[in-house]
């Protein structure tokens, strides 16, 4: 079985009229079926760029990208991409937004609607189906965007800081819900986050990037004991704290390269 995601010496430069900047350089990465990989790194190290490349929204300047063994030529419904901000369509109701993916892929039938409603309820959004995005708080909107991505049931999920706008309580609950759902259904996921403990708690592997240009600095394999425990309890597992400190130190070093030590916000 080919890896779900395979990046071979991927380089991406943003080209503008004024300047060209190197966002990602010579990056190799393989993600196997069922893995939950977290990408962490200082702001501007190319995490979003990398997800856009895997999603097929951004053709890389150089290198090869394969998803499920096939070269990526554009976005496809088998990859679900949740953008860093919610970007809900303001003229559509919450249900209309959540079901957007199903509608676009021609799968919006009664069953699809019901499943979307259930997902909304799971995320604590019951009763908001007929509201409009402007009537929801930032955290609620983010959850709607998450539902929108999950509703099409893609095999590979790319989540760009999906929990960043949530309060701590809901964040922990949703981490649990999402990680468990994905694990149960055997999905593969790539999560971008700036919360190191979240990265360790939910993933099987944490990839730390450094910036200017964006490169892999270090890969942390999460021991099975932590990886197989639901995120909420993983934080109490022995070894978690040590891993956290190691990651934290490494992160600080990655951020220091440019003299902006410890800047880890999104």
């Amino acid at each position: 079985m080919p890896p779900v995601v395979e990046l071979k010496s991927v380089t991406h430069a943003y080209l503008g009229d004024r300047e060209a900047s190197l966002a990602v350089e010579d990056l190799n990465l393989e993600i196997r079926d069922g893995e939950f990989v977290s990408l962490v790194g200082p702001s501007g190290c190319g995490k979003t760029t990398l997800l856009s490349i895997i999603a097929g929204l951004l053709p890389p300047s150089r290198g090869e990208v394969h998803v499920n063994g096939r070269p990526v030529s554009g976005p496809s419904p088998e990859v679900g991409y949740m953008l860093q901000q919610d970007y809900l369509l303001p003229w559509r109701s919450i249900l209309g937004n959540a079901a957007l993916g199903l509608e676009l892929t021609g799968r919006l039938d009664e069953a699809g609607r019901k499943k979307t409603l259930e997902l909304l309820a799971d995320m604590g959004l019951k009763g908001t189906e007929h509201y409009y995005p402007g009537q929801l708080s930032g955290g609620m909107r983010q959850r709607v965007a998450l539902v929108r991505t999950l509703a099409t049931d893609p095999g590979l999920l790319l989540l760009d800081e999906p929990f960043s706008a949530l309060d701590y309580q809901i964040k922990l609950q949703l981490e649990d819900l999402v990680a468990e759902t994905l694990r149960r259904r055997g999905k593969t996921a790539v999560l971008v986050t700036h919360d190191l403990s979240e990265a360790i708690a939910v993933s099987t592997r944490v990839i730390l990037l450094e910036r200017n240009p964006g490169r892999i600095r270090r890969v942390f394999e999460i021991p099975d004991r932590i990886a197989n425990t639901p995120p909420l309890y993983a934080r109490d597992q022995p070894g978690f704290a040590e891993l956290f400190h190691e990651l934290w130190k490494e992160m600080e070093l990655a951020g220091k390269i440019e003299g902006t030590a410890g800047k880890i916000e999104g």
Partner: protein
Amino acid sequence: MNKAGAENTGTAASRSEWLSSRHEEFKRAKRLRKRAVFAVQGSLLVLFFAAWETAARLGWIDRLLFSYPSKVFRQIYVNMADGSLWHHLGITLGETAAGFVLGTLLGTLLAVAIWWSPFLSAVLDPYMVVFNSMPKVALGPIFIVMFGAGFTSIVVTTLSITIIVTTLVVYNSFCGVDPNLVKVVRSFGANRRQVFFKVILPSSFPAIVSTLKVNVGMSWVGVIVGEFLVAKSGLGYLIIYGFQVFNFTLVMSSLIIIAFVATAMYQLVVYIEKVLLSRR
């Protein structure tokens, strides 16, 4: 606890009473103000016509050039009664409506076409700028030669005024749509058609509706100028004709009718806009 609770409901009740009385007061003040504005507006209108009538009767202004209201309204009444007004009004209204609807529709379609093909947009850009800066009515004689002196060339003159502006405004709003919204639908594998109908069009809807308002005014300009040039029938023709035979009563009555009908049409469009946008 209980005592505090009871006290609270007591103050809450008086509070809501106070609030609703303040609200009533606020609404009454607003109503009064509205009535005052309306009254002053009405008196201004009456005053204007009275001043005009008096000035003409007392010979302060030239009666031949400026006519006077009682004569103007009598003229309107006579023309209504003998049916000649309806003929001219019908023609002008038909031309304006055709110019307005076609201009908005074709302008929007052209905007869609150039959005669809960025290459086409780049190619057409300088031509659109030139055409847009040009005084289009100068093309009137050419249209008359091409389409004959009549309905068609008047509508085409109107279109030349409305289409490009519509295209520019609508295309601009297409381009102003948040690219991230497009990214969202693209991430689900949407094709260009889906991107257009799910994101671009609905989010530009308010801009399209607002061009309706602009176009209704533009269409009147186009049609009246077109009728000046063609001069066979219509309200614009009546103005030119009245001017040529020195019948300024006819000129004034046509102007008053135009003011009235154009306002009615504008209000209709405003109403349509409200209905269209309120359903969102």
